[in-house]
């Protein structure tokens, strides 16, 4: 896996630029990852990111939009406003957790 520098830290990423090491993540890294995809993080963004990280740690997998909405308390509609076009992919990218399973 390639290692790159984000917000002054060495970070392991996959070929799509998704972080692969949960513990390498920091809030500064998240801010930079978000700005890479044109997003400035506000309060609700952070709520989503924190839910994603906690839920991933507990469940061992990245929650789908439905779970972020039902359990994390941010509606799907809002998620599309916060992370336009591809919320599932974008929010996991910023939160440093794997892309949710593209269930075949």
């Amino acid at each position: 896996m390639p290692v790159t520098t984000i917000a002054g830290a060495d970070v392991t990423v996959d070929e799509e630029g998704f972080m692969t090491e949960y513990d390498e993540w920091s809030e500064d890294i998240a801010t930079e990852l978000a700005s890479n995809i044109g997003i400035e993080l506000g309060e609700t963004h952070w709520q989503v990111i924190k839910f994603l990280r906690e839920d991933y740690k507990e469940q061992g997998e990245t929650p789908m939009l439905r779970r972020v909405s039902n359990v994390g308390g941010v509606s799907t509609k809002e998620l599309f406003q916060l992370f336009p076009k591809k919320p599932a992919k974008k929010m996991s990218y910023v939160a440093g957790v794997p892309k949710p399973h593209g269930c075949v």
Partner: protein
Amino acid sequence: MKRLLVLGAGTAGTMVANKLRPLLDEREWKITLVDQNETHYYQPGFLFLPFGGYKREELEKPKRRFVPAGVELMMAEIDLVEPESNVVKLTDGTELPYDYLIIATGTHPTPAETPGLGEDKWYESIFDFYTIDGAEALAEKFETWEGGKLVVNIIEMPIKCPVAPLEFVFLADAFFAERGMRDVVKIEYVTPLPGAFTKPVAAKYLGDMLDDRKISLESDFFLERVDTDDNKLVSYDEREVEYDLLVTIPVNMGAEYIGRSGLGDELRHVPVDKGNFLSTKHDNIFALGDAAALPTSKAGSVAHFAVDIFTENFMDHIHGRPMREEFDGHANCFIESGRGKGMLIDFNYDTEPLPGKYPLPGVGPFSLLQETEANHWGKLMFKWVYWNVLLEGRAMPIPALMSMAGKIREEVR
């Protein structure tokens, strides 16, 4: 006397009862199968029904026929599972205690999850084809439809048989061409996925097939509601797609009792270990087939491979030994592409569908990710195999775990 309780006498439940009965001593083990419907449908056949390919009678058989001697079948509705006391409650008040429980009640299209579906225009201008009633109603609609814009929409993944919506548009293209009205039918495929399919190699092949057939693709479309007054789909990010005839694949959810019993995820699918199907919460509960929350296709082929692995593991588990077999998520699906041809894909948790030959490397007779007549005949033949070999748990001449032999690695740029 110990009791193994199997909920659901569909593909997975029937197979597992057939496999386990000869292995569990009848003096020691009672096996009870619970289901609420008498009829077993050959679900892969639903796809062909709207295009006049099958009639209802050809796709149904009594479930009882596939229940082996020595297995008790109860026709009843399940109310609740109480994992703490190892009891299943039926809606008629009966309580069924169990030592081991296998949940195999599948997943079901749930139109009520989406505003606009299952309401006033249901089976008038909006149809599903994953139910026998929906598929039949659509066949009737197609008989007199004069053309316009046909939209096929997947609302949310996962769905069972995830290639069927693509097969549906391929078959629709061929069907309307044959009727000499393809020029008055526009076909659009609207999906929440980033492309025609999830995995890159197959998505490229299948995307090209959509292009060849002049079927337009609207991707990353996450449906919020269907506006049945103005005949349009509205996404969460406020994109709109108009239709004259909508064929929807509603949100798929597990049985309601799973939700009530606290055993499911948001979609009422049961979280299990993806290698051995043991519930992540309870050491004597397993979930098999579509009912399980697994990162692979919800399909009969997966259930079949999974049950092979499960049987050996279950014998280990009840004797207190560690479960030695590990399921790899193996799935294979024929993809009907219209005009007498079909494709085949074979894949697992880690390996995406790749081109090649199957099951014999270099020989076939089936070709992976390629349209051939042999694949089409394989798909049709499978109905016989399903009723006569698969459900009764007889041995199939293909291994349960996926093999790389015969597959060709390919990079997509």
